[in-house]
């Protein structure tokens, strides 16, 4: 198991955002994380990425206990993540943004630059190299975030709704990019609402609702799962589906 989350809970005061969530990801897998808004997916992600310390439970990466470690430590260990609302360095150029990521693995500017350029090429941002991140639209920013975290050379990437809000063409390009990243050997855990992404990319899917995992299995199984449908659409829809 590359990443293992055991009985992770996170409480904010009296509000339990995540309750006893488990996750086991083997190297090379692509796992999908689904669930309605407010189900606790992002909070769970934050626990996995070291942004928040879980109230209970453990997070193990490659056998190392990272539960109480900082986000920096997680990144150094090889866990990279993107943010639901892109957090690119607005006033820095695309190249500089990616270089910040690259500097995790390289000490010197020249090497970091080389890696950054290579990754920018791969993610299709080459023409906007010298532009400030602020001038890119949201899809551009999402792509930049992916490029930036890719430059850190992660073994596992947590993508938080990285493919949301894209046009159909952009979506296809993004899916292709994610595939290419996977081919490089990166393990992926992606949070998505878009069914197409989950169906085409994910090998296994976890569904969150109200802080815990309510379903777990292959994409096809999940889509037909009663509890999942109920979570997304509410009770009424379940009954409706049963009618001819």
């Amino acid at each position: 198991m590359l990443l293992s989350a055991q009985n992770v809970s996170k409480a904010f005061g009296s509000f339990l955002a995540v309750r006893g969530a488990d996750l086991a990801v083997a190297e090379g897998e692509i796992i999908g994380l689904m669930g309605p808004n407010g189900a606790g997916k992002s909070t769970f992600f934050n626990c996995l990425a070291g942004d928040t310390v879980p109230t209970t439970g453990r997070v193990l990466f490659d056998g190392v206990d990272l539960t109480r470690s900082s986000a920096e430590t997680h990144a150094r260990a090889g866990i990279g993540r993107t943010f639901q609302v892109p957090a690119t360095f607005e006033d820095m150029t695309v190249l500089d943004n990616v270089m910040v990521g690259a500097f995790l693995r390289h000490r010197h500017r020249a090497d970091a630059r080389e890696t950054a350029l290579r990754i920018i090429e791969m993610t299709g941002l080459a023409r906007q190299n010298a532009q400030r991140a602020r001038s890119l639209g949201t899809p551009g920013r999402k792509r930049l975030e992916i490029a930036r975290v890719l430059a850190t050379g992660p073994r596992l990437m947590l993508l938080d709704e990285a493919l949301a809000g894209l046009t159909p063409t952009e979506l296809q390009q993004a899916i292709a990019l994610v595939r290419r990243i996977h081919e490089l050997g990166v393990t992926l855990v992606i949070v998505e609402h878009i069914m197409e992404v989950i169906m085409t990319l994910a090998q296994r899917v976890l569904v969150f609702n109200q802080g815990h995992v309510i379903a777990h299995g292959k994409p096809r199984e999940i889509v037909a799962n009663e509890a999942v449908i109920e979570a997304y659409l509410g009770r009424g829809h379940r009954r409706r589906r049963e009618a001819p």
Partner: protein
Amino acid sequence: MRWGLPALAALLLFYPFIFTGPFYWDIGVAFLLAAISASAWNIVGGYAGQVSVGHSMFFGVGAYTPLLFYHLWGLPPVAGVPAGMLVSLGLAVVIGMPTFRLRGHYFSMATIAVAELIRIFVGTWELVGAAIGLQGPAVGRAWWDLTFRSELPYYYIFLAVLAIVLYTTFAVERSRFGYYLRAIKAGERAARSLGVPVRETKLKARMLSAVFTSVAGSLYSIKTGFIDPESGFGILVSVQMVIVAALGGAGALFGPLIGALILVPLQTATNTWFGGGGSGLTYILYGGIIVLLARFEPGGMHEWWQRVAPFLTRRKHAA
């Protein structure tokens, strides 16, 4: 602007011979001092985005130690410069630790409070002259006392220090450390997620900035031969550093230089025109400039130029 840098260097180098006489040399020295302090501040305030308004604590330490070495042990003031740097370094670390968690306005407020505390404390400490302050050698005993009658030697010493500070900033800008500083300013949370060691980086930036600010303070007290709590640790010292850097462009290599270029002659002008009441008016002007800057062009002249320059060069090509 390939010719820009050599031209600037030449101008600075030959300035005392183009504009001769004590009046212009005085302005030149004041300009260099302002540029040095502001550049030192720029490292932590401009690049890392940690708006410290208490940098006078380092300036003051650097200003007091040389005169203290003279006052207590009769040593040439220059001997006190390294000690000032060391104490400032220590101070940066000690102050740095509790203030790491503080963000934004709260951090700035904390820096003001600490600087004020030090200022008042120094004002009560007999050993360092309390409210009266310290004086340097009235007449130089030898060349190493650095008590020159003319401004000229000071000019070139200050220029050399400025060159060192600018070069260091330039090297930092291009290094991993520099990228990390900018990342922290642009988004600490994202920076963390990329493995940037935020605490360590901030601390290093503060230490570097503190050391250079200390040197600026030393230069000041060696040249003027006098220091007291207000001129060393006063809040106006901190404010001037910030406004000079911000006016020219905080986070830009030559920002502080540009800021000093505008502000120092301005200050001299208002002081000359309005005589005694001049310094009051100068600060009214400062205040007004800062407010306008904050409201309309927070990126300073550097940012303004970057916005305007493309239009100017385009016109040139068209014509």
